[in-house]
């Protein structure tokens, strides 16, 4: 994690590029996360790339149920030069889960953004190929959401094959 002076410099750089972009800075043991507005994520990542964090290690989807706005995305950045990590986070609501895709600028985020779309229903605008990646294409719902029930899949037997929807269509 960056030290206090570096963090201040990074937040300053983020605010310089877009004054409204930074919402909060969360420090937990061993990790600093800067929460930014969803619209400014692409620009914020570019600012951090210019500051040396040039490897986007990972993209995670998160559901903060029951807190609002519910959905979140975490971007883990790595600076090879400084051997240092920093995280950018953002929050969007389930009613309007749109956020800009970072895949055009960071091709490494492709599969993980698709995974976040698949599991949480986050819609990455501008993603070149936003399809389900792990669940079947005709699956309904986003299973990693916290309010998605577990154990709800009917098991197919001969006695219920006509009442289990979708299987033979």
């Amino acid at each position, binding site marked *: 994690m960056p030290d206090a002076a570096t963090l201040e410099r990074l937040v300053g750089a983020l605010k310089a590029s877009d004054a409204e972009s930074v919402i909060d800075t969360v420090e937990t043991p*061993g990790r600093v996360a800067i929460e930014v507005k969803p619209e400014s994520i692409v620009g914020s990542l570019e600012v951090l790339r210019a500051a040396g964090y040039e490897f986007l290690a990972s993209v*995670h989807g998160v559901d903060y149920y029951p807190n609002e706005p519910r959905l979140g995305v*975490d971007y883990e950045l790595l600076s090879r030069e400084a051997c240092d990590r920093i995280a950018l986070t953002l929050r969007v609501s389930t009613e309007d889960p749109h956020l800009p895709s970072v895949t055009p600028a960071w091709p*490494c985020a492709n599969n993980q953004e698709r995974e976040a779309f698949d599991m949480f229903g986050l819609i990455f605008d501008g993603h070149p190929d936003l399809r389900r990646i792990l669940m079947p294409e005709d699956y309904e719902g986003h299973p990693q959401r916290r309010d998605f029930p577990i154990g709800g899949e009917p098991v197919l037997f001969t006695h219920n094959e006509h*009442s289990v929807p979708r299987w033979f269509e």
Partner: protein
Amino acid sequence: MSTVDPAARELSAYRKMEESITISETTEFEGDRELLTLNLGPHHPATHGVLRLLVTLDGEVIRRLQPIYGYLHTGIEKTAEQKSYWKAIPVVERMDYVSYYFNAMAYCGAVETLLEVEIPKRAQYLRVIHMELNRIMSHLVFLGTSALDLGAISVWWYCFRERETLLDLFEMSSGQRMHTRYFQIGGVIEDIPDGWIEQVRKFCAIMPERADIYGDLLNKNEIFLQRQRDVCPLPVEKLREYGVTGPLLRAAGDPWDLRKTMPYSSYEEFDFQIPVGTKGDNYDRYQVRLAEVKESIKIIVQALDNLPDGPTITDDRKIALPPRHELATSMEALIHHFKLVTEGMRVPAGEAYYPIEGARGELGCFVRSDGSSKPARVHMRDPSLVNMQAAPAATEGWLIADMLATVAMFDPIIGGIDR
């Protein structure tokens, strides 16, 4: 469940799309040449699991490669959210089923970061020994199965002989051959048994020579070399762009290894080299892994030589179970035991990302805690999933046979991709 009349049901958008496709519409042309789209897998011996590849071919030359994942999706991350922290370890281990110690380490590390718990030195060393043994095992599986794909069956038998020795070592230290659940939050579950160190030393004495033998078997195999040398190279910049880490990146000449650059679990105390390639072709990808086996042996020998004495798990009773003998005499121990076994430990609210150098690259575990005794989110940054993004770029323009060799060299583990 209500009965649904199949005729009255509205077709889903996907089925509509599927029904609208006819063969004539999907025929593609490039100039006057007709392209052929070929489906490979998900059940195909050369795809190392249930990986499905859609290949668009011009004759035998690949014009487009599209990996399709999800055939092994079992919802492990969802399952982990239903379990208390310490009970999630077994399911997390089953993600990338060839490198279970790494999965457990990434997960336990993330939870330990949230708990801010100190790991005893002996436990750190035991973790290092087991992870390096696991790295050798994983590379042996890679070497054996990849050589099998390229028609060299004998290497497979030899590699799996050594793998068997390793699995016996795992069984001796933890009782299980695979998915050992040896790593615990706060340390390792118990000390190694008597005689284990001697067995590991015996293995370390023969393994470097064995690795040389396997290298000789393959390096004097003309067919193997023709399908490896200068095939499907990718430069460092391209690999970084696609987020590739681990042996694939090092094969292209970038000496990035988290064990050296951002050490965890006392890796800074060991003396070892990072093997790198020069071209980043398939031959380098295989050579780097073979060389890593020898470096892992070096680490294990050093760890055995300097194995510190002391406890193997933290003495924080809120995290680790009290020793068995205390239960009969101490009321507090009994209460702690009861609380841990029934409810599990409570982890302070927060988020942690714990990256380690897995056998295939950066294996990171993201854990979010909401303050309860169950994780609110467990997400693996699996190196196979990210590395496969570079597969289309590496193989387009090459022959379909080269593509199979390259997929073998990428060494994706589908359990890790699909989770």
